[in-house]
């Protein structure tokens, strides 16, 4: 098999560009890996001058978006199941800046890939603007007086994130041995190749040498290592269930109801007090009577505080529209709940308001029925007790249908349903 990995002739780079030097060393390094063939390698290139190198490669190549090549390559690495594949990202300092999160994430997850950052300290393709890696004092066309703040030390960042291998080098001469070393790492390896852009870097910083720039910026030319045992990029595979439908029991029709038509109910209380679960049990009870039901919850985005309101529709026909134009009954079991539904209650022209006796009912044309929901057994039983009282009065379905659902659910262990039922006799 032809083992040419990339053609280093006619490369699309300016004379004196470090990208060429990196490519030459990469070709040598790949060629030295005896068990590796071009089709074992996937090269993912970024946007910018380095991005257009992909046509030189005889490997698989993917040319993506600016800064995203590390994430794209991470997806490819995780998707490949064979161990012998090599995934290489070629990216510039601009790409590494916009995609910093992707680099850190891949390092932290120790994804099996090699990232080579071609750090020529500016955006070369777009006119030499400074990047997040441009060192303090380095001059560019839009900052001819020099960048006022320091750049990221990428090697230290990926090292801190847990990368087993991170090395900064000066991209002059042959450093294929270093690239080979990085490619052989089982896990995440990272190379930052320091270059100077011949078009903009040299022009604005004519007297400066790469070594001096790196030294003055505190960018050490060295290897950072982390000892990490097992790679974890396959750890997402896990045991699953065979059907999401099997998780929920079908509901048997065990009760009878003479109710015909459509009835809508608002149950409103406080978050964490069992409003949603009570409404769900009521709906199941309705279905166990051969009727149809829908249930939805409304609560603040913070979930655990404030109001918690549930809408339940009961119908003898299949339910299409799942909204409530005007509720037939509103059940309010707490102050939070009252505040949420106050305007709906005020707008009611008929129907019933069941409200805890400690709360003041708003002006409404609905018939007001005040009872103790919270006092008998506390806040956590209030919604359920209110529903039982509601059913015993309205007789839409038998009270037993609901108490059966409570007993069959986990709530039956926490709440003594018999005690609640005893309240109905009073």
């Amino acid at each position, binding site marked *: 098999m032809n083992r040419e990995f990339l053609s280093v002739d006619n490369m699309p780079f300016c004379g004196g560009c470090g990208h060429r030097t990196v490519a030459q060393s990469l070709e040598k390094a790949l060629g030295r890996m005896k068990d590796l063939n071009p089709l074992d390698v996937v090269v993912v290139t970024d946007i910018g001058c380095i991005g257009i190198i992909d046509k030189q490669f005889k490997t698989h190549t993917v040319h993506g978006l600016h800064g995203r090549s590390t994430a794209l390559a991470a997806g490819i690495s995780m998707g490949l199941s064979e161990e012998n*594949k090599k995934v290489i990202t070629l990216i510039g300092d601009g790409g590494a800046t916009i995609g910093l999160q992707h680099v850190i994430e891949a390092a932290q997850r120790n994804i099996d890939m090699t990232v080579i950052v071609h750090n020529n300290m500016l955006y070369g393709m777009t006119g030499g603007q400074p990047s997040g890696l441009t060192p303090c004092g380095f001059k560019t066309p839009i900052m001819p007086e020099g960048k006022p703040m320091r750049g990221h030390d990428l090697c230290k960042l990926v090292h801190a994130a847990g990368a087993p291998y991170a090395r900064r080098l000066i991209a002059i001469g042959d450093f294929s041995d270093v690239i080979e070393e990085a490619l052989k790492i089982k896990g995440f390896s990272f190379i930052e190749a320091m270059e100077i852009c011949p078009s903009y870097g040299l022009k604005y910083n004519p007297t400066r040498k790469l070594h001096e720039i790196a030294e003055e910026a505190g960018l050490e030319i060295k290897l950072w290592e982390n000892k990490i045992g097992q790679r974890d990029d396959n750890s*997402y595979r896990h045991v699953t*269930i065979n059907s999401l439908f099997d998780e929920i029991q079908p509901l048997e029709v065990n009760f009878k109801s003479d109710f015909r038509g459509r009835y809508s109910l608002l149950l409103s209380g406080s978050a964490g007090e069992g409003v949603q679960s009570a409404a769900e049990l009521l709906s199941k009870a309705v279905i166990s009577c051969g009727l149809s039901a829908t249930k939805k919850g409304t609560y603040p985005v913070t979930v655990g505080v404030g109001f918690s309101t549930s809408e339940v529709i009961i119908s003898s026909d299949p339910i299409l529209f799942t909204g409530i134009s005007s509720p037939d009954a509103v059940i309010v079991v707490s102050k939070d709940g009252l505040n949420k539904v106050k305007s709906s209650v005020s707008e009611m022209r008929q129907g019933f308001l069941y409200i805890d006796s400690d709360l003041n009912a708003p002006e409404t044309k609905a018939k007001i029925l005040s009872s103790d929901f919270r006092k008998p057994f506390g806040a956590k039983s209030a919604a359920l007790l209110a529903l039982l009282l509601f059913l015993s009065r309205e007789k839409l379905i038998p009270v037993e249908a609901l108490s059966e659902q409570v007993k069959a659910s986990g709530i039956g262990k926490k709440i003594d349903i018999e005690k609640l039922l005893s309240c109905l006799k009073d």
Partner: protein
Amino acid sequence: MKTMSKRFIDGSRIIVESAVRTGADIFIGYPITPANLIYLYASRRFKNVIPAPDEITTLQWMAGFSATGKIPVTATSFPGFALMVESIGMAFMMELPMLIILVQRLGPSTGTATGSAQGDVMLVNGVNSGGYHLPTFCVSNFEDCWKLPSAAVKTAVKLRTPVILLTSKEMVMTLQDFDTDSLEEIKPVEREFYEGQEEFMPYHPKENKVPHFLHVGNPRHQVRMTASTHDRKATLQHSTQEAISNTKRLREKMTENLKDYTYYDYEEDGNENLVFSFGTTSLASRDAVKILRSNGKKVSLLVAKTLFPIPDDYLRIITKHKKTVIAEENLTGQYRELLFGRMGKNEVRGVNAIGRMIRPEEIVEEVKR
């Protein structure tokens, strides 16, 4: 007493089960209300689930998995979708199959996370620079939650493209009694990989304008992919004839195969009135049509399930009727405007609302008006 096998279930559960049974094999998740139930169920049902650190990474990882021959799925809502848009364009250009479930909530911006809406129609219409549609399906009821994710995955594979499944908070979070046992069996998608001996050209189209697929990392042929304008070999081109014709093909493959993935419900009842809807509002539309018919009014019903590219059938059906009422839960009637522009069309009227569901009575009233 009669025993029925109804379950009290939400649309999220049905959608995830459908996608997995069709052969989607990896879910990349990033949490956002109201798409979280889909992520939760996916974590139990998909063999591979990876939590991503953000939505840009989500789409990039999905593209990476797709390039290796997997079928990735994610679910999000507008704020997350907005971050994905650039990468969706990339996956579209690279012709990578995947499924993106977009659960609409009330906007603009972060709007109301727990409020339902149908406000992302224009967004999905314009997701690609240059006016290239992604196949976009919209679920209108629980049966659709079963059928359409499967159709979406199959379309993604068949057309080598990202596909959007549009839904809303109301559809994926509301619990309802539903008979899951009588659902039709889903057959897994059959994938074809290039098996020829000749050089593999990743963007050389077959007769149906879709290129063969072969995954990166395979030991037989070099595979090249790119997001930039390219020829059949995926070599970057400025604007050569071959490259421009490849770019045009990206639209042609969607429109010329549209019949294969056009889904809608149509009940013809005379040629006087038509109620047209999609998504959650189609439930109110179905109720409205029932009410109107019980009052002796002749009224046809069209429920669109393939939203983009817009099938010609919809225009044909609308033209057949003297009056059409299009109901959608957004401010301006986005789909209506896409069909007829801002000038509108005589006898095509809209029923619209935001921050609440459209009620059947409102549709009835507009038909009677």
